[in-house]
C-alpha cells in the first residue's frame, strides 16, 4: 500500500499536467522505502533501459508497445514509475508500492490494468 506522502505527490503531479493542459491519459506513482517516483503513460522507456526482471515479466504478456487488453504493454504510467525505482534498486517486482492512478484532465481514478496487476501484485 502506498504511503500518504506518495499519494499526495501523485496528486500534485497530476494537477501539474492539468494546469499545463498537457493531457496525457494517466499518471501514477511508485515507491520503495524512501524513494518515490511519479511518471506518466506512454512508451517512455527504451527496451535497453527496462529493469531486466520487469522486461522479462512484461514480455510474457506481449511485445513492448503491443495492445493487449486495455493497455499497450510497457506503456502504463505504473510501469514507467516503477522502472524509475528499479533502476536504483535490485529488488523483486512486488516489493514496490503503487499509488492510485489519475487521469489529469478530470482527476478521475483509473483501475490498474490486468498486466499491471499481474506484474506488481
Amino acid at each position, binding site marked *: 500500500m502506498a504511503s500518504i506522502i506518495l499519494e499526495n505527490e501523485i496528486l500534485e503531479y497530476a494537477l501539474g499536467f492539468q494546469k499545463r493542459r498537457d493531457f496525457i491519459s494517466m499518471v501514477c506513482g511508485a515507491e520503495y522505502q524512501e524513494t518515490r517516483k511519479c511518471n506518466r503513460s*506512454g512508451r517512455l522507456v527504451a527496451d535497453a533501459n527496462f529493469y531486466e526482471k520487469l522486461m522479462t515479466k512484461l514480455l510474457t504478456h506481449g511485445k513492448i508497445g503491443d495492445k493487449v487488453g486495455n493497455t499497450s504493454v510497457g506503456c502504463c504510467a505504473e510501469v514507467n514509475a516503477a522502472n524509475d525505482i528499479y533502476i536504483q534498486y535490485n529488488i523483486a517486482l512486488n516489493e514496490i508500492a503503487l499509488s492510485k492512478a489519475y*487521469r*489529469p*484532465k478530470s482527476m478521475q481514478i*483509473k483501475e490498474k490494468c490486468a498486466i499491471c496487476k499481474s506484474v506488481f501484485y
Partner: protein
Amino acid sequence: MSYSIEQQLSNDFDILLWDGIKLIHIATAGGILPPKLSETENDFKQQIREVYRYRRVFSIIQNTNLERGNITDLKNYLTFFSYMSIRGFYSYDKVNIDDVEDQTYQLISRPNYNRNVHIVKFSNEIQPLERLRYPLNTRINLIQTNREFPGDFNEFNLIDFI
C-alpha cells in the same frame, strides 16, 4: 498524421468536430478512436491550443448528474469541459475510462445557445468562419460527423455518429 494505438492509449486527446449545427469537443481519455478520428491529418494538440485563445463569451449548462464512481471532485471534473463550453463547444467525455474499447460518450457541458458558425469547406477540411465580435480562430479544422450529436445528457455510442 495518423495516431498509433500506443498514442491513442497514452494520450487524453481533445478532438474538435462539427455536426452541421454545433461545435463539438470530445475528450478521449486514452480510449481507442474510431478510424475516422485516428486516421485524420489533424494535430489534436495543436488544434486545442487554438481554442484556448477563444474569448469566454458563453453561459453554460453543466451535467451534474453523473454516475461515475471514480470522480474525486465533481468541480474539478467539470472544469475542463466547462472551459470548452464557455468558448462555444458542446463538450463530451468518454464514460468508461477503464475500458479502452468502449465507445460510450456523454455530454458534460454545453453553451446555453449554439455558436453561430458559418462553415467553409475545402478539399477535406472544414473550417469555421464567423462574423461576430469575437470570431473563431480559422486555423482549426473540424472533423465532420455523420449525424447530429445528442444535445441531451444521455449516454450514446460514438460509432453511431462518426
